[in-house]
């Protein structure tokens, strides 16, 4: 009887506590990322924001206290490249909204197409990922398939969102985190083991001369598009007679004004060089996305402060004769070149494995603290939101995870997760199926 009453009380208390975004975590090892770890430290959260971090704190009476003895507190992880909410089942066209028709679509906004009920969201966040960049990426023909018309060059605006909220508005961190752009390339045949810069829609074989023609045409059209956007900007500023609003060019204004970065998908050294040229010629902020090699581009990127979103570390080398660990060592190559980077999964299915991508980089040379930064603080800095997320510092949102060990190790469990100081449910479809079928008689 006593135990039942106790359980009831406990459940009631938990219910009240769940809504409370003011609390203290104490006795845990705190990893602020921005500074050295604090053994037996505390994190104070008030109204969803971090109000203090340190070694000793006496909570006022009545404050909810989470005992963290033997546990670790880290900032929530940020996946800097996903299609979260835009794609549910990769091979089922009806559930995929990742890329539109048309070559230049800067007016498209990923955020408004993010399905807040996507099963990927609770699955991903159960592993400690609190926010993601959802990136429109053209696969031609509207995404999902391998067939379709020419793929787009500008696919639309990426959104940075929290993995919590009843609507995409509530999930919002940055509506337009960056403009997704596929740098034109001389394409080798795409497909399995094909050129990663080659859009799947152009999967056929064609001559080098033809490929070069396509490449030059694409580059010219891209330059023209920026040029037209710039004329539009001038015409608008001058309030020219006969000026008519154009949604495509309107969407380019924040890019031209340097307020919004261009997220340039560029895998090979050649593509990265073209992306750097784009930054120079168009005077726009560029973020390199999913590079697969660095080649001689390290100093060029560093000199211009161009950061990179590194894709999966667990990836095959680009070429047969590359070192077997070429992809494993790439993050360390970027680090040694002094280029700031964060990690992205460029996937939904494996977004939850983001910390393991970072871990493999550590196995092959990257310092552990850099790997951790690349899934937290660096990401926040690259996306320009380090005043709000990315580390455990006073004034930031309390996006926190409590773990029983190093989140970079697969065997580590995420015990509790907070987004804006709110306890987030770690349950998901997969756990429910697990419990249901473990108990099948």
């Amino acid at each position, binding site marked *: 009887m006593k135990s039942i009453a106790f359980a009831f009380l406990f459940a009631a208390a938990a219910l009240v506590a769940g809504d409370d975004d003011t609390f203290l975590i104490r006795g845990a090892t705190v990893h602020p990322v921005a500074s050295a770890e604090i053994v037996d430290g505390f994190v104070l959260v008030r109204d969803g924001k971090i109000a203090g971090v340190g070694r000793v704190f006496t909570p006022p009476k009545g404050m909810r206290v989470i005992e963290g003895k033997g546990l670790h507190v880290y900032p929530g992880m940020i996946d800097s490249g996903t299609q979260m909410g835009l794609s549910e*089942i990769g091979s089922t066209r009806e559930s995929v909204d990742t890329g539109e028709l048309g070559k230049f679509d800067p007016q498209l906004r990923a955020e408004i197409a993010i399905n807040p009920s996507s099963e990927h969201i609770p699955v991903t966040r159960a592993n400690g990922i609190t926010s993601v960049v959802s990136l429109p990426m053209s696969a031609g023909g509207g995404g999902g398939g391998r067939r379709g018309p020419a793929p787009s060059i500008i696919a639309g605006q990426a959104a940075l969102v929290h993995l919590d909220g009843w609507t995409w508005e509530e999930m919002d961190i940055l509506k337009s985190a960056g403009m997704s752009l596929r740098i034109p390339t001389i394409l080798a045949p795409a497909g399995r083991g094909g050129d990663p810069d080659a859009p799947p829609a152009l999967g056929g074989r064609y001559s080098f001369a033809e490929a070069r023609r396509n490449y030059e045409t694409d580059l010219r059209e891209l330059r023209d598009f920026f040029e037209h956007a710039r004329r539009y900007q001038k015409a608008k500023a001058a309030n020219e007679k006969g000026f008519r609003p154009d949604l495509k060019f309107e969407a380019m204004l924040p890019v031209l004004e340097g307020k919004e970065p261009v997220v340039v998908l560029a895998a090979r050294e050649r593509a990265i060089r073209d992306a750097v040229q784009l930054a120079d010629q168009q005077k726009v902020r560029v973020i390199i996305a999913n590079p697969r090699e660095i080649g001689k581009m390290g100093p060029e990127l560093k000199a211009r402060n161009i950061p990179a979103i590194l894709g999966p570390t667990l990836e095959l080398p680009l070429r047969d*004769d590359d070192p077997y660990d070429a992809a494993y060592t790439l993050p360390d190559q970027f680090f040694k070149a002094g280029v700031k980077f964060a990690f992205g999964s460029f996937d939904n*299915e494996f977004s939850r494995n983001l910390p393991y991508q970072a871990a493999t980089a550590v196995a092959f040379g990257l310092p552990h603290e850099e790997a951790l930064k690349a899934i937290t603080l660096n990401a926040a800095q690259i996306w320009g939101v380090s005043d709000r997320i990315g580390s455990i510092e006073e004034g930031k949102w309390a996006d926190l995870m409590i773990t029983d060990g190093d989140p*970079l190790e697969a065997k580590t469990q995420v015990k509790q997760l907070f987004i804006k100081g709110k306890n987030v449910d770690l349950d998901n479809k997969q756990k429910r199926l697990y419990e249901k079928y473990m108990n099948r008689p």
Partner: protein
Amino acid sequence: MKSMKPFLVACLFTASSLAAPPIVIQNATILTVTRGTLTGSILIRNGKIEEIGERITAPADAQIVDATGQFVMPGIVDCHSHIAADSINEGSVSVSAMVGIEDVLNPEDIAIYRALAGGVTTANILHGSANSIGGKCTVVKLRWGKDAHDMIFEGAMPGIKFALGENPKRAGNPSGQRIGAANVLRYPATRMGVEDVIREAFTEAKAYQQSWKDYNDKVARGEQAIAPRRDLKLEPLVEVLEGKRFVHAHCYRADEILMLLRVADEFGFKIRTLQHVLEGYKVAKEIAAHGAGASTFSDWWSYKLEAFDAIPYNAAIMTRKGIVVSLNSDSAELMRHLNDEAAKTMKYGGLSETEALSLITINPAKQLAIDNRVGSIEVGKDADLAIFDKHPLSNFAKVEKVYIDGELYFDRNKDLADRAVHEADKKKLLDKERELQRRAAPGAVRRPAA
């Protein structure tokens, strides 16, 4: 003279193995998988594990490998791979049992070396999943540098690939992404049709088996008889009926898994392994009762409709329900870190370290019936070993050395040292190619190298 050749080769082979000095791996943490963990040494002689112990007296001629601070585990066994083959899918027909991977093994596929560098020593190379009954499979050891014939795992039971669900029925779907087939519709287009293809094939196979039995009976009785015409498509299926060939069946959904088990029951054969088997957790009881093994992914899901109920707890649930479970790669990339995949089962479902390691060593070895040779570190077994710098279930671990039959096939230090040489060789070749192009067509449009 001609008949002498295999004998001579065998002599040479034996002689060279005998000539190789014994190896002692010292001061390592040894994860035997089946006999616990110890810190000590392993003595390898003639390609076999001769002794394991905390203290081993190294023979005078032994080569000493100091593995202080390192971890030795059995070479990883991958029960589902498509590397080292020139082609995978004969998708033009619903039953392609007449074709086999052994005929198209490619020992020069770089994926072999890369998998070795991930600690894999043995792999089941399967036909693709384009048809309900696919081609024959071959178990290989990743003896990089040897020819195709020498890669084959001697004496391993041959297999055949079956496939259920979306992949085989795609060929009948006008809008489906057909695998390995031309642009013509091919039966089946539904899961109903997939069952039918398998039942039709085994009905034929039974009749074929009977025709040979009748013939052999007649011959035995001394009667005049005409032998049936050999049918290369049905022969492997008769082998399945007679327990001489393993069925490795690609499957996803619970309904199709159950269907296959029941068809097998009806025709009196066993499904050796269910491959992928992402909804295996829903019918674990039935799988265990049939006695099939399950070879699954750690955490793949949602890439297609039939993978939407896939859960990372699958391996743990099936293990708890008494099934022999393995984790496979089905991918030249994933194959390189099966140890990382195994670690995930500790998070999802709480498997122990030994259970997690079993999923990529002794369990797949059992599934392929090669556990008398590989899959654990035991005296008398093949010296197929992977040495890691850290515990292999740590995501920070990397492979240092890999032995197959006591022979060193991967050595990270050597790999690192060889890189400059390979780079110089490549540059020479590229310079030569550029020079040839320049001479052949000065001023022509050239494709940039690499």
